[in-house]
């Protein structure tokens, strides 16, 4: 079973107590959707985040059907909020 590392940012990182990366076991040929499901199971604190998370493979946005390539740089994070405007209400 391949072992993958996923960089996490913002809310995800904070929910994990500041961890910058998580590790997960996945079957060969797993897709982004599989990855999200496995993370939701393995890290229940992130289950809610998996519903609206963005996933990237080698710094490009990836989608549910995409198969995870071997050795890729994977990352997950919420929709971006740069720029000091469009503040959500607390």
């Amino acid at each position, binding site marked *: 079973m391949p072992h993958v590392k996923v*960089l996490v*940012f*913002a*809310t995800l*990182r*904070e929910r994990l107590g500041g961890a910058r990366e998580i590790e997960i076991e996945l079957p060969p040929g797993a897709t982004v959707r599989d990855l999200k499901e496995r993370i939701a199971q393995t890290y229940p604190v992130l289950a809610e985040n998996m519903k*609206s998370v*963005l996933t*990237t493979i080698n*710094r490009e*946005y990836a*989608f549910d059907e995409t198969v995870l390539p071997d050795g890729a740089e994977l*990352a997950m*994070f*919420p*929709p*971006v*909020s*740069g*720029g*000091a*405007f*469009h*503040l*959500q*209400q*607390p």
Partner: protein
Amino acid sequence: METDALPTLFAITEDELDLNALLEAITLPTTGAAAIFTGMVRGYTESGQAHQTLYLEYEAYRPMAEAKMKQVAEEIRARWPSIQGIAIVQRIGRLYPRTPTVLIACTAAHRNTGVFDAARYGIDRLKEIVPIWKKEVGPDGEEWVEGEYFPRPGE
């Protein structure tokens, strides 16, 4: 003027934004106009549910953010071929009210060939696809700010 001679500058930085230096860096001998957008930390937000902000904490996925800034610059050049220089800079870390946090600047020979539209497009795209997040810290607690945009394949 060949495209590969045109200055394109993008950075994620913890340093203060220096508008004078950034503008100088994207000004050619043929440049006659620049449009610059900056976003600042608001200490008080009056629209919607009024609230106070003590500071913002910015975080970036740095290598991807730089790659996506480059993509935004390329999209600008594809849409407004008259653009000469482009600077896209995001400041990260803990930033207090009135502080510029992000800058997009575009230069051109003349002001009526797209500099304003290009800068506006740039800041809109930055907000959509460049992986930067902010946490708002106010008197009553803190909250991550989440965008609403879901990139499409190829973005």
